[in-house]
């Protein structure tokens, strides 16, 4: 009974309440996409030739696209892909950035110089042409699942550089902290000093880099799709649906095309609320 009372009281704290609401919204979105097969009236690839570019109706909640496919079904299935792909890629790139940027800042000296110039070089490469070359190396037709895996790897392995810069700078200011000198003076070894004493202090920076990467990666996935490297048709993704918005006269006439944008904003906002409240250390 006592425990239950405490949970009730905790829930009433404003930060907690916002976190709970955000969690519920995220859970609803995730569940809806998970059970897309039951919720959506049709498959994401089925074409209704009698209703091409149709406005919203009872039959098609968000209308149909120019190939006559149900937008609502595509949004649900696309959420499934994007909600898995973007955070996973963000996790990969943030981990790489933490390792590379964190170690560079921690080790200092010439290692830091090498890594910094490495990052600058990486960022200055002509990625458009390198990606086109990469596309040329891949087989012409990849299965949708392979395309998802390739997109994940590309986003994760290309996105680490700018967060690594920020993390290196953050680590640099931390390495002179008294508590690290004190920990070293206790005989704690270099690796543990980095992983157990320094990394937890980088958590706010890492979390920020993580959730900033998610919307960026959702959009990057759309751009990769233009090069033929993103999630491939007919599998829907938010990126693919956002690409439709290029045609702004169509958007003005069919404002329901903005549905994926609305969902993107809601999901990223909720992620931010959940992560920020989790970041606070309990008193």
């Amino acid at each position, binding site marked *: 009974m006592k425990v239950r009372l405490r949970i009730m009281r905790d829930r009433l704290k404003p930060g907690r309440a916002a976190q709970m609401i955000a969690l519920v919204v995220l859970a609803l979105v995730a569940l809806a996409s998970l059970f897309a097969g039951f919720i959506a009236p049709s498959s994401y690839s089925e074409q209704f030739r009698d209703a091409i570019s149709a406005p919203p109706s009872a039959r098609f909640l968000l209308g149909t696209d120019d190939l006559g496919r149900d937008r609502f079904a595509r949004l649900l299935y696309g959420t499934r892909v994007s909600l898995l792909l973007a955070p996973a890629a963000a996790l990969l790139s943030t981990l790489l950035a933490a390792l590379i940027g964190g170690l560079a800042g921690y080790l*200092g000296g010439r290692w830091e110089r090498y890594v910094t110039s490495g990052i600058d070089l990486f960022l200055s490469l002509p990625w458009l042409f390198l990606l086109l070359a990469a596309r040329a190396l891949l087989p012409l037709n990849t299965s949708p699942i392979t395309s998802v895996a390739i997109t994940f790897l590309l986003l994760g392995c290309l996105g680490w550089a700018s967060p690594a810069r920020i993390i290196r700078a953050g680590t640099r200011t931390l*390495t*002179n*902290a*008294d*508590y690290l*000198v*004190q*920990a*070293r*003076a*206790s*005989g*704690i*070894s270099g690796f*543990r000093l980095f992983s*157990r*004493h320094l990394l*937890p*202090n980088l*958590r706010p920076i890492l979390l920020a880099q993580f959730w900033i990467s998610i919307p960026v990666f959702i959009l990057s996935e759309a751009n990769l799709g233009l090069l033929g490297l993103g999630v491939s048709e007919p599998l829907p993704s938010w990126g693919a649906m956002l690409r439709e918005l290029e045609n702004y006269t169509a958007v003005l006439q069919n404002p329901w095309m903005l549905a994926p944008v609305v969902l993107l904003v809601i999901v990223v906002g909720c992620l931010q609320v959940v992560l920020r409240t989790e970041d606070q*250390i309990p*008193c």
Partner: protein
Amino acid sequence: MKNLLSTRLTVDYPNKPRILGDVELEIAEGEILGLVGESGSGKSTIALALLRLLDHKGGKIHGEILFDGRDLAKLREKEMRKIRGSEIALVLQSPLSSLNPVLKIGTQIAEAWRAHNPGNAKQWKEEALGLFSLVSLPAEPSFLDRYPRQLSVGQAQRVLIAMAILHKPRLLIADEPTSALDAITQSEILELFRRLNRQLNMAMLFISHDLLSVASLCSRIAILQRGQIVECGATEQMFREPRTEDTRALLQAVLRNPFAAQPTELISHG
């Protein structure tokens, strides 16, 4: 008494060569040596140099640091790591910033314990609680779950001292351990150092700019000025007959009593 530590130490920083020049210090086993000097005279550099913790700031050490027959200046980093915390421990001057803000007290003690006891890493809890009662902290397991910002400055300093004596070091370097504390906590911490020195027969290098606390704790005092030891001797001797102008200036600055008719009567002129 046997000599525990004797140094002949020069330190260069890239932008400040000769921050320490031929510093000779000797500490016998179980002795408390006071090291006094103005801000910027190189006191903290000595503390860090003895543990070879200057490389992050780019400091270069020349000369020798003889500790128990070994020259620490020539040891490899791996061997030096084994000495840090287990044979020579350090307490820094600002207690709250010397504890990791995002880790529980217990985690930090466990890490310090694990550094020299990887075999029985579980035992840290009893050890920690035993030391907590020794340094007058609440010996309750719940205290280990606190974060540094839930402690007072005095408590944080006691936690740091408990962590420093975790492995019963033979030498404790305390770098201005009382300068961040109020007068009452200060005298409590000094009393604690005195007790630890007696009970554990632990030698100490007590670094401070506060001559009075040094005089109450240390049997010998060394005076550091501009990176050099200008005077070193028994405490009473130094207060009665300071040999150099620098020492006299230090003593006068401390001992000037605003209500006394003869402000500097403790110090003989001449």
